[in-house]
């Protein structure tokens, strides 16, 4: 019976709403839980350190300023997504928003390329992160040089991709509830590990680090004496050096597309569930994403400052330059004395002259990977399900096994192509640029959602005016349009730089990487073909796909 009364929190003096007991009326999720998900999505260690290892390409870009600027700009993305969640909480997600505002066909093509086809590329990227942050440093530390070098071979790269795909499949099979528990454990232990890393970098000096690096370079890698200077010398063949104190606005802007690799995703969990009291309240989703973003930004700032203090900025960037330029066979590049990706966690571990401790630190910090990577195909699975329920994909794509509730149809649609793409990644190095474009295509998907947000007040006037955000206007212009335009310009800038940067700074410029262009054009063509074929086939079956999102007249 109606024995539950809830008042509005903001004006608790008297009740503003009477609720009765009814199915689905739940209390809000804890902001902390939602924060953890957002925090994982812009994973400071796995994605962050990996992405930042490329910023040597912009030596005059002041990273700290770049990170803060990126944080400010992504905040507009966060506001845009929080507003969309507020307008359409139940049917949230890029696919639903794009379909309902831009149209079913366009929504399908943009979402399926962004959340399905492009995610194939992320499996090898995840695999590479697993190798450079876990397998290789751990193997070298334990003296298993053979294992470490195996993972740098083509077969080893392919095996690492298979390991990632197997791990993701296990997570999908065990279900999100179990994995969420694992994530929490990984979160706390990972944070403890990060505290140790920061503590080491804080309390030791740069000369301590130089000595420790030289010692371990010889001990673990057989490098000649003074590998610290040797690394800088090796990098100097292709890299002019970098100073942390240099500041110029133009180069800071050029850092943004690199930072997008890990800081663009606080909205990853924008699809929220449940009929929560105040679900349309913009504050809950906003604060979850905002906190995830800015806590990460603050932590990155601390890590960057500590790297500068103890490891030395020029050395760190030189190590990155030497590693990547040698790997990509840049003309004139020399092999660094320590033939491993410059992992700041491993470097911090060097400060303690104990290989067991160093290995333990790498294992603990590996939890940043294992607590995060399991959700690789979560969004893809949802988009495939939605497309299958819309009859654009065959019904089997949404099949779930009766016993363990494994979505084997969508899993197969992700795993099988991912294996093929992983093989290409491992055995055809000329396709590398395709993988560098993985961020850009997701940014394009976000851009389409942002366009949907910009025009929402006019395209779906009914929905917009009935939502709580309708009252937010600036000079009569809907706030969602304004923040959407700012976000859109930000995304467009990065898309332009990825596509047309004249120096091919990001390895993805159209003029230099035709493979990448062909691949992504092909994915869009395939998505269009799937939609058109589905339209024709379903039409013969008496199903008109155009009417999926056609609104029934009210009066």
């Amino acid at each position: 019976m109606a024995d539950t009364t809830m008042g509005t929190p903001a004006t608790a003096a008297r009740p503003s709403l009477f609720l009765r007991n009814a199915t689905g009326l739940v209390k809000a999720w804890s902001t902390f839980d939602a924060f953890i998900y957002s925090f994982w999505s812009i994973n400071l260690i796995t994605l962050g350190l990996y992405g930042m290892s490329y910023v040597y390409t912009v030596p005059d870009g002041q990273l700290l300023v770049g990170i803060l600027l990126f944080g400010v700009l992504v905040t507009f993305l966060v506001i845009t997504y929080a507003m969309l969640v507020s307008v359409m909480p139940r049917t949230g997600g890029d696919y639903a928003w794009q379909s309902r505002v831009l149209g079913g066909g366009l929504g399908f093509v943009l979402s399926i390329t962004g959340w399905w086809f492009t995610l194939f590329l992320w499996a090898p990227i995840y695999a590479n992160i697993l190798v450079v942050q876990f397998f290789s440093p751990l193997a070298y530390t334990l003296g298993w040089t053979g294992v470490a070098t195996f993972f740098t071979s083509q077969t080893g790269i392919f095996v690492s991709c298979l390991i990632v795909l197997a791990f993701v499949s296990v997570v999908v099979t065990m279900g999100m509830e179990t994995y969420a528990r694992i994530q929490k454990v990984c979160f706390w232990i990972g944070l403890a590990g990060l505290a140790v890393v920061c503590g080491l970098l804080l309390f030791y000096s740069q000369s301590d680090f130089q000595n420790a690096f030289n010692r371990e370079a010889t001990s673990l890698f057989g490098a000649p004496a003074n590998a610290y200077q040797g690394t800088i010398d090796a990098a100097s063949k292709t890299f002019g050096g970098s100073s942390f104190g240099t500041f110029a606005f133009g180069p800071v802007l050029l850092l943004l597309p690199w930072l997008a690799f890990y800081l663009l995703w606080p909205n990853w969990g924008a699809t929220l569930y449940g009929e929560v009291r105040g679900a349309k309240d913009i504050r809950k989703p906003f604060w979850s994403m905002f906190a995830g973003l800015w806590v990460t930004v603050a932590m990155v700032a601390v890590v960057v400052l500590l790297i500068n203090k103890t490891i030395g900025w020029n050395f760190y960037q030189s190590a990155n330059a030497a590693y990547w330029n040698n790997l990509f066979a840049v003309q004139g590049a020399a092999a660094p004395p320590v033939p491993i990706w410059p992992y700041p966690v491993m470097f911090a571990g060097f400060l303690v002259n104990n290989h067991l401790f160093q290995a333990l630190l790498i294992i603990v910090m590996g939890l940043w990977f294992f607590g995060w990577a399991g959700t690789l195909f979560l969004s893809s699975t949802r988009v495939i399900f939605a497309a299958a329920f819309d009859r654009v994909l065959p019904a089997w794509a949404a099949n779930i096994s009766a016993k363990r509730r494994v979505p084997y149809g969508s899993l197969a649609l992700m795993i099988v192509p991912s294996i093929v793409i992983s093989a290409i990644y491992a055995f055809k190095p000329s396709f590398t640029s395709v993988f560098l474009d993985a961020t850009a295509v997701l940014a394009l998907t976000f851009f389409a959602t942002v366009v949907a947000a910009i025009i929402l007040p006019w395209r779906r006037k009914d929905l917009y005016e009935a939502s709580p955000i309708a009252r937010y206007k600036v000079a009569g212009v809907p706030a969602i349009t304004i923040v959407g335009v700012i976000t859109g310009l930000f995304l467009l800038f990065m898309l332009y730089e990825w596509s047309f940067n004249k120096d091919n700074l990001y390895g993805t410029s159209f003029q230099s990487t035709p493979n990448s262009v062909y691949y992504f054009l092909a994915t869009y063509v395939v998505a269009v073909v799937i939609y058109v074929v589905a339209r024709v086939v379903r039409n013969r079956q008496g199903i008109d796909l155009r009417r999926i999102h056609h609104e029934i007249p009210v009066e």
Partner: protein
Amino acid sequence: MPKIFFATDLHGSEVCWKKFLNAGKFYGAEVLICGGDMTGKAIVPIVSENGHYTVALGGEEQAVAADQVGEVEANIRRKGYYPLRMSVGRLHELDQDPVKRAECFQEVMLEGVDRWMGLAADKLRGSGIRCFVCPGNDDEMEVDDVIRRAELVELGEGHVVEIDGFSMISTGWSNPTPWKTHREESEEKLAARIDAMASQIPDPSRAIFNLHCPPYKSGLDEAPAIDADLKLLHGGRALRPVGSTAVREAIERRQPLISLHGHIHESKGAVKIGKTLSINPGSAYEEGMLMGAIIQLDPKKGIKSYQLVNG
């Protein structure tokens, strides 16, 4: 052969009910089936004081001029809430007295359903469209009487009805939920309730099971995990199957042509359980969007086609 439009869990959204009534013409369906949970979950007080009205919707309290109250009421109804004008004294009375609050809820809910039946009569008269409604677990038992009195809406609960050569059974009862709603019972009793109707069906291959609660572990019953305090776990990302084992067993044993479900709004989908096509179209009533399923039946094929739509 009949084309069916099925929607469910409208929860007091008048926009969705109007769309439901228009769906027959819009999609060319001859049969409309509403799967239950018609009534809303909340009353939004519109408090009269000092010559104006005060209402809080979407988190912030706002003053509303008398000539704007109608618009505010329409907006509240759109979300599935019941707007109710009242004095400050009545507000405090309802706040403090659960019995009076319950009486008030029943009054506005039955009045709302009665108004919907009137709308149905206006819309469907002369159209030839049959309209079935089966109240769900969130609907009080008194709702049935209002539907029985309706001119052009047929009550589904507990009956076997014939639809152009196909038989349909309906129940809005569910297995126990954490909310202890109006039509909940043990799996054993629910199984007996379904069995009593299902045993009257001559040919399961031409049967429609309109059962509000979805089958257990079907993918149509995945609800966000909550704790004992009804708090969402893991940021709302973790899902649990909460459907009925009795419903699943009935489908597996009887193998009807199609089974129609609701109850779990987030769990939109269409799955095969043996030969049966089971559908939960989901619900987004608070957005004023009518999620539904169009099913074209065929005398030979059984199901000629089906489609989930967001109307």
